[in-house]
C-alpha cells in the first residue's frame, strides 16, 4: 500500500559497476539530481546560515549606526522576555490542542468512513472541503461569519434553538473574547481533521482483512479487534499524522494573524517573530528567536524523520 521503494532490491543500483567507468557513471547518474539539490541548498540553507549570523549581531533597522557584534545578548533577551515565554507556551498549547483533537476526530471519522454505506463517496468529499478553503479565507469565515457575537452563525443558531423553545433571551457569548485561544484552535481543528482523516483512512484500508476475518471467526468481538489489531496497525499512521500535523501547525501564522491578530494571549512563535521583525525591526532579536524555534523544531523533526523513515524501510523490506 505504501509506494516507497518496493523496487530498491531489484533496481540496477544493486549491480556492481566496473571500477574504471564507475566515477563517470556515478556523475551521469547524479547530474539530473543536481539542479534541484543546488537550488534547495541556496534557497533554504543559506538564509538559515544568515539568520544564525544575524542572531549574534546587534542590528535594529531603527538604529542603523549601532550595528555590530552582540555575542549572546539577543539570546539572553529572548530567554528573559516574558512575551517570548508566553509565545512558547501558546505555541505548545495551540499545536498540541489542534493535533490531538483533530487526530481523535479524524480517527473516529475514518472508522465511520471505513464502512460501506450509501453516499460514502459524497461524505468523504464533504469531509475534504474544509481543507480546501484557503487558510486566510477560512480564518476570516470563522471570525466574521461564525464567531461574530451579533450575527455569527453560532449565536444565530443558539437564538434559533432558544426561540423553538419559546425563550426570548438566548445566551449570546462573544466567542473570540471569551476563549481566544480555543477560537483559534477550533478553526484550525476544522481545517486539519480532514487531513488526519485521510491519512488514517488510508491506513485502515491497508489493514490485512484476512487476519481480521480469522480473528472474528475465532470469536473476537469488535472492541478486541480494534484494540489488538486495528490500533497497532494504525499506530504508525497516527504518528505520521501527528508529526506532519505538528510541523505544519507549529508554523501557523494565518489563523493567529487573522482571527485575533495575536492579541488576547494567542501570539504564537511565528507571529511573535513576525512582530519583532516586521514591526519592531529588531533583526538581531528576531533572528535569535528564529534560531531557538529551529532548535525546537529539530527535536520534533528528528522524531518525524524517524517515523517516515520506518514506514519507508518497512516498504523497502517487503
Amino acid at each position: 500500500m505504501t509506494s516507497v521503494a518496493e523496487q530498491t532490491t531489484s533496481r540496477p543500483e544493486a549491480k556492481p559497476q566496473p571500477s574504471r567507468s564507475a566515477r563517470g557513471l556515478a556523475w551521469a547518474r547524479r547530474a539530473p539530481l543536481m539542479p534541484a539539490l543546488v537550488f534547495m541548498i541556496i534557497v533554504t540553507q543559506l538564509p538559515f546560515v544568515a539568520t544564525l549570523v544575524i542572531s549574534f549581531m546587534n542590528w535594529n533597522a531603527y538604529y542603523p549606526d549601532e550595528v555590530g557584534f552582540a555575542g549572546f545578548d539577543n539570546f539572553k533577551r529572548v530567554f528573559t522576555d516574558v512575551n517570548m515565554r508566553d509565545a512558547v507556551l501558546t505555541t505548545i498549547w495551540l499545536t498540541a490542542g489542534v493535533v490531538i483533537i483533530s487526530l481523535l476526530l479524524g480517527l473516529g471519522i475514518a472508522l465511520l468512513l471505513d464502512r460501506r454505506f450509501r453516499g460514502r463517496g459524497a461524505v468523504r468529499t464533504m469531509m475534504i472541503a474544509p481543507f480546501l478553503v484557503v487558510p486566510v479565507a477560512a480564518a476570516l469565515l470563522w471570525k466574521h461569519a461564525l464567531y461574530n457575537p451579533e450575527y455569527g452563525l453560532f449565536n444565530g443558531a443558539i437564538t434559533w434553538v432558544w426561540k423553538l423553545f419559546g425563550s426570548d433571551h438566548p445566551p449570546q457569548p462573544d466567542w473570540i473574547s471569551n476563549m481566544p485561544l480555543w477560537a483559534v484552535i477550533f478553526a484550525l481543528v476544522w481545517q486539519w481533521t480532514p487531513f488526519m482523516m485521510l491519512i488514517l483512512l488510508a491506513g485502515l484500508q491497508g489493514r490485512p482483512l484476512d487476519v481480521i476475518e480469522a480473528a472474528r471467526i475465532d470469536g473476537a468481538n469488535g472492541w478486541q479487534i480494534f484494540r489488538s489489531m486495528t490500533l497497532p496497525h494504525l499506530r504508525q499512521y497516527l504518528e505520521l499524522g501527528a508529526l506532519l500535523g505538528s510541523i505544519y501547525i507549529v508554523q501557523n501564522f494565518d489563523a493567529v494573524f487573522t482571527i485575533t491578530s495575536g492579541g488576547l494571549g494567542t501570539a504564537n512563535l511565528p507571529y511573535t517573530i513576525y512582530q519583532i521583525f516586521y514591526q519592531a525591526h529588531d533583526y538581531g532579536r528576531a533572528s535569535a528567536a528564529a534560531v531557538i524555534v529551529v532548535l525546537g523544531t529539530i527535536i520534533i523533526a528528528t522524531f518525524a524523520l524517524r517515523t517516515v523513515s520506518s514506514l519507508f524501510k518497512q516498504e523497502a523490506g517487503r
Partner: protein
Amino acid sequence: MSVVAVPSVPRKKDRGGPWLSLLAWVVGILFVLPVLWMVLTSFHSEADAATNPPKVFAPLTLDGYREFFSGGASPWPPLLNSLTASILSTVLVLLLCFPAAYALSIKPVRKWTDVLFFFLSTKMLPVVAGLLPLYLFAQKAGLLDNIWLLIIFYTSMNLPIAVWMMRSFLSEVPVEMLEAASVDGAGLSKTLRSVIAPVVMPGIAATALICFIFSWNELLFARVLTATVAETAPVFLTGFVTSQGLFLAQLCAAAFVVSLPVLVAGFAAQDKLVQGLSLGSVK
C-alpha cells in the same frame, strides 16, 4: 465503542449499521456546513446576511460579488499575481523535481535515501527562520514587491514535497517494463515517452495540483515581501476587512472567489491528495 471496529466488509450482524451511516452523514454535513454557509451568505444581500437568527431562505442576489469586484480596490491584480506565482512556481517545481526523482528512483544515485531525507528535512525548517535574510536580500537587490521573488520562494517551499511525491510515482513503473525497453534498444527519450510517461502522468498532475494549492494559500511571505504591485490574493483578503458597516456578504463572496481555484484543484486531485500530503509515504 465496540461498534467502531466494524470492518469494511458488510456483515449481517452489523446491528448499529444504519445509525453509524447516519452519524457519518451528520458529521460530514457538520464539517461542510461552514463552507456551504459561506457560499449561501455570499449570495445574500448585506442586510439579510447580518441577521440573528440567520435568514436561510432570504432572496439570492449577486450584490456581494458585484461589490467585491467593482466596489473598492480591484481584486483582479492580486488574483492574477497569485495565479502567476502559483503557476510559474509549479512549472519550475516540475522541471526540477522530475529529473531529481528520476535520479532517486529509476537510476538511483548512491545514498539516495540520504538525499531524499535531506529534501524532507528542509520542509521541517520553520519558514520564519529564513524570512528575515530573504527580506534583507530582497531589499538590497531591489526585489521587494517583485513576483519573481515569491516564485523562487514558492518553488523551494514545494520542491521537497514534489520530489517525494514524484519519486513515489516513478517507483510504480514496473522494472520489467524498463528492462524490456532497454533490451529493445529504446533510448532515454523513447523510454520516458512510451514507458514512464503513461504510468506517471496522473502522478505529475497530482503533484502539480498540490504545489499549486500550497503556493496559492501562502500568506506570511507574500505579506512580508510584497506591497502594492505584487500583492497576492491572500494578502488582499487580509487587507479587505477594514471597511466599516455591513460587509459579511461581500467578505463571503471574496473568501469563496479566492478559495475557488483551490477547491477545484483539490477535488480534482482528491484521490492523490493523501499521498501528496504525506509526502508519498501513504498511498
